């Protein structure tokens, strides 16, 4: 097997099985089946026991703990009758560590067998997750669940991908718009369901005065969580906020102090960020290009190269096109409702917030019939995966609900 830097690179049309079997069985199970929950519990334990130094992997291990999965299960205890669909095929972004793990868990929870194609360029944490998973699956007590999992890598347009697509009962594609369009052009069963997660962007709404009043400790805590939402994925995840909206009625010394205090706290947290020369250059170029091309006045603040902010004097015509990276944030001051009206194109995924009532944001989105806003979560929770993601309900889409007039009508 050709190897490069520890990663196994498959030859053309070759398939490298990283966990589970080559062909998963097709039989649908009921959602939240006991063997699935048992397997996830064991997975969670083993990840947490040995892999604390990898942040995303550790977070995944914590996420799939028994009690958390049980919480999910309770949400669907609504008396309706559901069953999985068969084999769900997943194609996940290689540059988000352990994303494939989350996607796989959603497929399993919904009652399906899962085959997952990951990139041969997948990173260390993905490889470790595969090894831990495979180790568990080879034990006799997990034989049943092993038959329902296939994690493999293969080349981009290989036969294995085309076959998996044309056979599956559903597919989940994470990635850029281009990837999704490419996959959509491939052959797929007429009754297969598709969950696509295309390019998205996200924002954060902070109440200026409220933030000015929190204690140093709260501030540090919040800044740390904000760091996790952004820097941890190079601020390139769809859920990482690009724009910070400072909700305030009018400008005051107090408001300015609150903002400066906040960014200083974020800058402090960003000290642990690995800012390579390449990232520093790319970020500086992005900053300059926006300053030179936006149709509104901007004001740049640099905290070393770790943190750049660009204050928008007004709402630019293409505000929904703004993207940060590696710790570069746009700032807008004013009423959050006004900003949101301009921002909420269909691509606006997550609003993280602090100091604003969640219900008010939800009400505003619904009342104004906005296209965007698919998630609203407190600041620091941007990257926390949930069965309802990006406007879709994984469990509902990836399982079938058996319609029964009498029962459904009275639930």
């Amino acid at each position, binding site marked *: 097997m050709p190897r490069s830097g520890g990663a196994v690179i498959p030859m053309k049309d070759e398939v490298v099985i990283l966990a589970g079997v080559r062909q998963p069985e097709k039989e649908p199970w009921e959602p939240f089946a006991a063997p699935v929950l048992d397997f996830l519990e064991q997975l969670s334990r083993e990840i947490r026991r040995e892999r604390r130094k990898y942040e995303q992997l550790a977070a995944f291990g914590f996420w799939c703990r028994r009690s958390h999965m049980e919480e999910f299960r309770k949400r669907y205890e609504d008396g309706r009758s559901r069953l999985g669909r068969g084999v769900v095929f997943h194609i996940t*972004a*290689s540059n988000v560590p352990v994303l494939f793990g989350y996607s796989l868990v959603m497929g399993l929870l919904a009652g399906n067998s899962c085959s997952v194609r990951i990139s041969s360029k997948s990173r260390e944490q993905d490889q470790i997750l595969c090894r831990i998973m495979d180790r568990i699956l080879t034990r006799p007590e997990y034989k049943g669940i092993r038959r329902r999992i296939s994690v493999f890598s293969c080349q981009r347009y290989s036969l294995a991908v085309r076959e998996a697509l044309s056979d599956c009962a559903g597919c989940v594609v*994470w990635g*850029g*718009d281009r990837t999704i369009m490419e996959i959509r052009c491939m052959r797929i069963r007429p009754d297969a369901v598709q969950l696509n997660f295309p390019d998205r962007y996200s924002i954060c709404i902070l109440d200026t005065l409220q933030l000015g009043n929190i204690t140093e400790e709260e501030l540090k805590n919040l800044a740390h969580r904000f760091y996790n939402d952004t820097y941890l994925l190079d601020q390139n995840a769809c859920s990482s906020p690009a724009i910070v909206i400072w909700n305030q009625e009018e400008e005051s010394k107090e408001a300015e102090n609150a903002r400066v205090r906040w960014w200083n706290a974020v800058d402090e947290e960003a000290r642990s960020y690995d800012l*390579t020369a*390449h990232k520093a*250059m790319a970020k500086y170029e992005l900053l300059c*290009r926006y300053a*030179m091309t936006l149709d509104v006045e901007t004001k740049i603040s640099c905290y070393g190269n770790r943190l750049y902010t660009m204050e928008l004097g007004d709402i630019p015509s293409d505000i929904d096109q703004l993207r940060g990276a590696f710790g570069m944030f746009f700032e807008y001051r004013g009423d959050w409702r006004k900003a949101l009206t301009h921002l909420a194109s269909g691509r606006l995924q997550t609003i993280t917030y602090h100091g604003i009532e969640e219900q008010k944001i939800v009400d505003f989105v619904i009342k104004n019939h906005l296209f965007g806003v698919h998630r609203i979560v407190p600041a620091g929770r941007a990257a926390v995966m949930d069965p309802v993601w990006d406007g879709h309900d994984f469990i509902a889409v990836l399982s079938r609900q058996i319609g029964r007039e009498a029962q459904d009508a009275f639930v």
Partner: protein
Amino acid sequence: MMIGEMSEEKGKIDMDYEMILARKPYSLCRAEKRELFGDWLTELTEYHRQHCPPYEKLLKALEIPSGRSMEEEDIPMLPIGLFKSMELMSVHPGHIFKTMTSSGTKGQEVSKVFLDTDTARYQQLALAGIGEDFFGDQRLPLLVIDSPDVLKDRKMFSARGAGILGFSIFSSHICYALTSDMELDTEAVEGFLKRYKDTRVLVFGFTYIIWKYFYEALAIQGKKLELDNAVLVHGGGWKKLISQSVSSDEFKKRIYSVTGISRIHNYYGMAEQTGCIYMECPCGNLHASVYSDIITRRAADFTPCEYGEKGIIQILSPLPRSYPGHSILTEDEGIIIGEDDCLCGRLGKYFKVTGRIKHAPVRGCSDTYEG
């Protein structure tokens, strides 16, 4: 502005350029150069602020006030990538004399650099000054290791073409060593060698082209050319050669083995600041001339590095007037070794280029589903 004032301003600027371009290229000591470059680049920053609207917007966003006197280190930098994605000029489009492009490989975006006649002339004079210091003021027969086709489109030409055209000012006669198919033109080369048997000649080309189409062709054919009297000048970067594990020493040794050339000078330069190239001296160091300067910066905060410390290379030159390229942050890394005290005797900073900034994998949701 009234017409009288404008011509007066232009007159003053011309005088500055004539003055500096008349100087020997390695004749300014640190203190003099700092003062000259601080003033001149400050003035040029103002000039581009007034003539290039996107540049003005950037300075405004960075809150760089008008009329403040800046040191060389304080001059705002444009990242080199912007010349790829934007069309930046400080002259009326009607005054563009030619558009230069960087030598990107196929499919890559290339930089576009807009030159008016003044800027093109300054750049050519700077190159002439540097060349004279290294090869004397006599015109020499020039063997260009490239195909004449590179120069076909004069309006829109590449850094490769610009280099050839630039170096042709040192020549009394030009011979192209490669055919349009990039094959060694044995007949032409042999004719050239015969004609200039006992004359000093100049050989010029891009590092990778010399290696791939000249050295390798000669090595395969087992040919040795009689070029003992030649000076070879080459530039354009080591990126492709480093991937083939060819070091500078190895390059020199191999070239010597097929041509007998012992005087080989590498240079560092780029389309975004043509003319003011950084030539390698006999001690193996690249030198900044009076026409340009170099600063290396730290990735963490872009503060200037100490001598001996590796950093991202910034290049500064007062020559670019038709486009705001007087202070550029490159994507290369290097080490400034010292200033004014290289054993070769040239004044100014001397340095080494260590290579391109390494592209680390970036996280994020898009750009998925690869290999």
